[in-house]
């Protein structure tokens, strides 16, 4: 009998996160204060983050203990199963062995609570009573609503108005967990009021929602801000995925040759590959291939430039060194909303820049086709974001079929697509557009900017 699922017992769940900062080939460039453009200090962050989180953001400790209270909540769905995709392998007739870590088992249905839970915990410990955050389509907002509910915190989510009206299901989830959810721009913040005055009919944007959430936190003593991706501490919390997967591979005496995941801000994939990257950085697994999967419509790593840039349109988040398409870039309307971010996590960008990883960009239709193949073999209907690395996995497995290599492939199955069925519907009806970033023309445009 071939084993389909590799389980860890609850007491085998890792009790420490792995912090890659001290092991990076060179230190990451310091984040800058968006107003002064001077290196960001703890004091700059104190207004909106609890001290434990600030310490983690800059820590040089390799292993950081996961608080018992956080482990307790993790155990609601963790350790998450590692699956062998036997049926997919059979359908592809590949000699490759395909594995995926299934993060869709969490109550909100994705990897996001891996960081929402510790962030809620540290804030509760610091005496904070309420967290504010922004959300686009609602994945992150629902994860934080879930986490705050468990630590008796209030939660205020500024949800992009158009999504609030058109995609009500995630909002209903948030309200079910007791969060208050407002269509942004609201009349509760200066930023929101200003936008409403200027553009009375706006549908809002993530940039505006961030400004509102940050302002809310900065102007209320009992309130902090919480972020769902990009920053170091978020990736740190997500390493629980990769640490579990490593143990699970040890149990079956395997080690992946090829790891891939989808990248928007970089937290889900960062959490998966970072513990394996430690082995590559230390020379134990020099041949390990790590592939970032991104949309052709928002190809940050494959077509962006490596530079200091603002994290958001409103220029309120820290300025960080990363691959970027420009903070004013407006990505095309693809369904993988979670991948429509102009930059990527600085840790991930550093490793890409130094040549430790690769990146590939995919079009929508090929990605949905792969997700459909996956659904018809493995059963799970994955999120449009996750579908990007399903595509990379299938491509690699088919390559193995040609070469006869028995590679071990691992992808991070970051969440289910049950709230994205309308996107699948459009795919079935042939209505999905293959958006792409016109990199050459943009380059031509930027090369000939008018001289002042």
């Amino acid at each position, binding site marked *: 009998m071939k084993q389909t699922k590799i389980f860890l017992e609850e007491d085998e769940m890792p009790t420490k996160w792995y912090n890659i900062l001290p092991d990076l080939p060179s230190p990451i460039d310091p984040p800058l204060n968006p107003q002064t453009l001077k290196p960001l200090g703890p004091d700059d962050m104190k207004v909106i983050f609890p001290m434990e989180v600030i310490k983690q953001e800059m820590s040089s400790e390799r292993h950081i203990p996961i608080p018992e209270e956080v482990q307790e909540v993790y155990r609601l769905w963790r350790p998450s199963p590692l699956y062998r995709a036997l049926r997919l392998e059979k359908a592809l007739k590949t000699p490759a062995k395909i594995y995926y870590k299934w993060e869709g088992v969490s109550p909100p249905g994705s990897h996001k609570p891996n960081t929402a839970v510790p962030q809620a915990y540290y804030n509760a410990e610091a005496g904070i009573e309420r967290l504010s955050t922004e959300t*686009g*389509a609602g994945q992150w907002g629902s994860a934080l609503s879930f986490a705050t509910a468990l630590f008796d915190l209030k939660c205020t989510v500024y949800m*992009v108005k*158009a*999504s609030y009206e*058109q995609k009500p299901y995630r909002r209903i989830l948030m309200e079910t967990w007791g969060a208050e959810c407002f269509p942004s721009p609201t009349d509760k913040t200066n930023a929101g009021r200003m936008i409403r005055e200027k553009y009375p009919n*706006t*549908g*809002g*944007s*993530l*940039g505006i929602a961030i400004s509102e959430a940050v302002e809310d936190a900065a102007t209320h003593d009992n309130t902090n801000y919480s972020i769902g991706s990009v920053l170091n501490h978020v990736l740190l919390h997500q390493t629980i995925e990769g640490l579990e997967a490593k143990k699970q591979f040890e149990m079956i005496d395997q080690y992946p040759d090829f790891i891939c995941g989808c990248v928007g801000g970089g937290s889900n994939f960062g959490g998966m590959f970072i513990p394996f990257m430690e082995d590559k950085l230390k020379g134990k697994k020099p041949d390990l291939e790590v592939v970032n999967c991104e949309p*052709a*419509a928002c190809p940050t790593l494959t077509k962006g430039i490596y530079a200091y840039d603002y994290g958001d*349109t409103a220029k309120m988040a820290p300025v960080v060194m990363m691959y970027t398409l420009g903070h004013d*870039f*407006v*990505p*095309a*309307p693809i369904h993988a*909303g979670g991948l*429509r971010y102009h930059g990527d996590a600085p840790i991930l960008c550093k490793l890409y820049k130094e040549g430790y990883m690769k990146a590939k960009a995919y*079009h929508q239709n090929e990605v949905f086709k792969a997700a459909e193949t996956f659904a018809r073999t493995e059963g799970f209907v994955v999120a449009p974001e996750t579908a990007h690395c399903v595509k990379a996995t299938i491509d690699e497995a088919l390559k193995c079929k040609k070469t006869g290599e028995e590679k071990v492939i691992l992808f991070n199955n970051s969440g289910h697509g049950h709230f994205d069925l309308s996107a699948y519907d459009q795919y079935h009806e*042939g*209505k999905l*557009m*293959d*958006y*792409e*970033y*016109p990199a050459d*023309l*943009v380059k*031509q*445009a*930027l*090369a*000939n*900017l*008018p001289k002042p």
Partner: protein
Amino acid sequence: MKTIGFIVNPVAGMGGSVGLKGTDGLVEEALRRGAKPMAQERAKNALEGLAGYGVKFLACSGVMGGDILREVGVAPEIVYSLGEETTAEDTREACRIFLKEKTDLILFCGGDGTARDVYSIVKDKIPILGVPSGVKMHSAVFSINPRTAAEVITGFLNGELQLKDAEVMDVDEEAYRDDRIDVKLFGYAKVPYKPELVQGRKFIFNEESDEQSKENIARFALEFMRDDPLYIIGAGSTTKKILDLMGLEGTLLGVDLVKDGRLIARDVNEKQILSFLGKREKAKIIVGVIGAQGFIFGRGSQQISPKVIKKVGIENIIIVATPHKLANTPHLLVDTGDGDIDKKMSGFRQVVCGYRMAQRKKVLST
């Protein structure tokens, strides 16, 4: 109450079934070959959803509209009575009357020939919509089928729809029967359409109008056109928008040449383009997607000939089209007249569809 002007070209589409590739001037021959009038039936299908709707119909008498309206239970106001035979002039005269009577929409049943007759009088003064019933339908003024026409009309009457520019095109039927295709772009009519939901800014869902999309494309074009080459700008309303935004008085239906932000020649023919190309090293071509079938070359911009394309190089062709246009054409078509060029151009190509935004679209050679 809204008013619709209604015209049926009773002989439209008759030539097709009997192998005549069009019916212009050949009604008797079509009838002799056993062709049956089909426009009446198509018109009826389009009208069925409208019976009982609060709308006033103005129509021509008899086979050009009045009969069908009565059949579906609508009492039309007959504003034009026919003689014994119907001609294209009847269509044009009816349209003149519709304009005078302040009609909100002209609904016609026919093909490219009828569309051209209607457009020749109406231009873009009031919206028109075609119920497809002709042999040739290159124009973008038709609904997909008679049933969808009814949906578009009710949407329009309820004030739910926007208007877009749609190509009015027609083939020279003499040439067509000799298996030569010479499709001309006659102009742009206003046609009601249902906007697709377009996601504008980060996570914002906006209803971006076709007009806004054109402006976004043009804004981007202005940026990348700051480089050195001569730009050959093809026909159509999207490429025209680029010239508008540059403050240049280009042509809507012709080909214009731009260099360093200046219009150096307008409405040029193949010969003129080649002579400009002879003088300089580098050139680029910007073309839109023309007509209902989605042609990038071979319809509407024949001035950009195979010779011109060879000289410029296929890698220097930039295709532009709005998301709405692209959503309505499953693939793009190319028919330059040179099979080798057509083959080289087919496959996946990038189409600029917004500000720093593009789509990948398949191009087929016909």
